[in-house]
């Protein structure tokens, strides 16, 4: 039965649902993140080649997919006359196999450059065991605790960059003892958790919201703006099942987070690089990754605009369809500008005026373009708190690439400008051009009528 279940899980997750590939954004991040240091390989800092793909992969796999069993598993599979341990075991083993396939495919090229092929495979297998065990060992912790533990482990791994000899990835000693110790620790925690596995968290009636938003008979834009600024919809995933947790995140919280990240960026670029021999290379990498990080945020922000937007209330709002959508898109663009403002300030302080212009103007306008393309060709909606199934299809891939195009061009322009042209003119032209390209969607009635029709046909309401 165990073998049958594993086969079923693998088939369902990989060949039919393609769950492991569902997040196209992550694949793009792994690819872009890994390829750049690989191409710019510096012999004095080999650990840099694996650091960025490792960060991206480790964090996304230890923090985000926190469930062992999905809601459907709990609702239906657990009702079958099969031992619970067999079901959970099958799930864990199939997850491990998929993760290992993914890790070997994406990580071996980078690791082999540093450790050689054989040793890379050993490290990657150990890392996969670590990630799989960590998911189970920490499944019932709150997200911020998981983030803290994962970040601490990563800092320990990557302390090899500054020559810390006891890092588990340090080249001065063998890598295995550190990893083996961690694996052993998580193994004991995982066994303990599995013997007392909880399937459900009873959500009950949620806590009351402390500060209510008050709506008055003002202009519709003001009221829609209030909604956009005060709520962030579905965030995070449930601790136990693949369901979203509904939480309101105010823009002030997001600004606080982006301020901290911007300050870290400023400190890294301004001070830390001075103490490293390869400061220009390191500084450029940090700059590039900051842009990529922001652009991936812009992309997911744009894609998320309508995921929790009840379309049926468009009918009950007595506002014109295009007017309603226009107000939402403009509000979201303003919100993004406010969130990214700390980065704009820091980029100006570090003399990156072209990039500052792109973050301040190009990125907010790009969200209008991204949202419009995504909504028209590949709309997704969160319903009943269950993660939307984002199947990897030719259509979704093309839509993803098309929606990313504008941001990609803007980043390409500022990076090229930084390396070759070193003038503000090129970013200025690119950003000014991006405004009408995006703004046209604010007034395009036929486009939105087709988009809503398509979304409703796909079952979004």
């Amino acid at each position: 039965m165990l073998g049958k279940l594993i086969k079923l899980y693998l088939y369902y997750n990989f060949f039919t649902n393609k769950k492991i590939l569902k997040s196209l954004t992550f694949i793009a991040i792994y690819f872009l993140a890994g390829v750049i240091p690989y191409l710019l390989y510096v012999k004095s800092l080999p650990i840099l080649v694996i650091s960025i793909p490792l960060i991206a992969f480790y964090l996304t796999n230890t923090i985000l997919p926190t469930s062992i069993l999905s809601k459907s598993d709990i609702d239906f599979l657990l009702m079958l006359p099969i031992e619970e341990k067999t079901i959970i075991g099958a799930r864990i083993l199939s997850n491990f196999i998929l993760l290992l396939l993914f890790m070997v495919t994406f990580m071996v090229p980078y690791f082999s450059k540093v450790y050689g092929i054989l040793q890379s495979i050993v490290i990657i297998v150990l890392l996969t065991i670590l990630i799989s065990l960590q998911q189970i060992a920490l499944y019932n912790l709150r997200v911020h605790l998981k983030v803290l533990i994962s970040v601490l482990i990563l800092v320990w791994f990557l302390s090899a960059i500054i020559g810390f000899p006891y890092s588990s990835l340090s080249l001065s000693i063998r890598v295995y003892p550190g990893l083996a110790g961690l694996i052993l620790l998580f193994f004991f925690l995982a066994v303990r958790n599995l013997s007392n596995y909880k399937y459900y968290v009873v959500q009950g009636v949620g806590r009351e919201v402390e500060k209510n938003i008050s709506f008055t008979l003002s202009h519709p834009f003001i009221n829609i703006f209030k909604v956009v600024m005060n709520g962030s919809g579905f965030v995070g995933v449930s601790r136990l099942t693949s369901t979203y947790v509904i939480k309101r995140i105010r823009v002030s919280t997001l600004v606080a987070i982006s301020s901290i990240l911007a300050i870290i960026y400023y400190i890294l670029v301004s001070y830390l690089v001075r103490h490293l021999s390869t400061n220009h290379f390191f500084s450029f990498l940090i700059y590039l990754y900051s842009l990529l990080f922001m652009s991936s945020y812009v992309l997911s922000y744009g894609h998320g605009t309508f995921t929790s937007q009840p379309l049926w209330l468009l009918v009950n709002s007595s506002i014109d369809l295009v007017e309603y959508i226009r107000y939402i898109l403009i509000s979201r663009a303003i919100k993004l500008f406010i969130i990214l403002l700390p980065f704009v300030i820091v980029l100006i302080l570090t003399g990156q005026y072209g990039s500052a212009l792109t973050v301040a103007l190009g990125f907010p306008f790009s969200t209008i373009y991204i949202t419009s393309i995504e909504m028209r060709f590949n709309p997704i909606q969160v319903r009943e708190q269950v993660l939307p199934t984002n199947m990897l299809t030719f259509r979704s891939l093309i839509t993803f690439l098309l929606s990313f195009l504008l941001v990609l061009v803007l980043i390409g322009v500022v990076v090229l400008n930084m390396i070759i042209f070193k003038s503000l003119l090129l970013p200025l032209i690119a950003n000014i051009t991006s405004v009408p390209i995006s703004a046209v969607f604010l007034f395009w009635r036929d486009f939105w009528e087709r988009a809503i029709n398509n979304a409703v046909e796909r079952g979004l309401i």
Partner: protein
Amino acid sequence: MVVNDCIVVRNVVKKYDNLVALNNLSFTIPCGGRYALLGPNGAGKSTTLKILAGLLKPDYGEVYIMGHKPGSVEVKRVMGFLPEDPLPYPNLTVRENLEFIASLRGIPNVKDKVEELMELLDLKEYEKVLTGKLSRGNRQKLSIALAIMHEPKIVLLDEPLNYLDIPSQEKVISLLKKMNSTFLISTHIMSIATRLTDHVIVIAKGTMVWEGTIEELRLFSKEEDEPIESIVSRLMENVR
């Protein structure tokens, strides 16, 4: 302009890729009429309501709501629409959802109206709870309140009593019965149809197969005590 028929559906065809959801569907509902839309699963009931609400465009045919095209601002002003399994803004509280839509509708005395609706539907104790964290029943009550808060002249409801407990069902039925609107209610439950409406439109495979009053429907009974569900079932079976 005097309009006698508040809802006009004429020769409507709607396809989802190769699947024909509506096939030359035609019916009219006079202003003030209370109609139930019945049909088996996949008959096209929800598609019909979404087309009337302006959320879907028909591939062919004409639809008019009080003489206007669905989706126009003129129609939105007078229409209330409740889809099946509705989800209001999950990251807004009950009160905020009501205030938000009320203010967008331009309803005077927003706060008073919201208070009234919350009292009416027993939502007061959840006013500060995020909608996404409500039980399905309370979410349904909130959705009904959002759909009818402006006392619409045209009311489109898709399974309005889903998830409601019996006292809540009675409250909603009483609330809807007091309204002098034109109703089109899609439902599978005949007791709802008989209590909220007096006319029935039966559709199957996207086409209207019967229309008439509930009394006329009862005339089809083979035995004296034949339940109305059995009669409707026979009507639908005949089309399959």
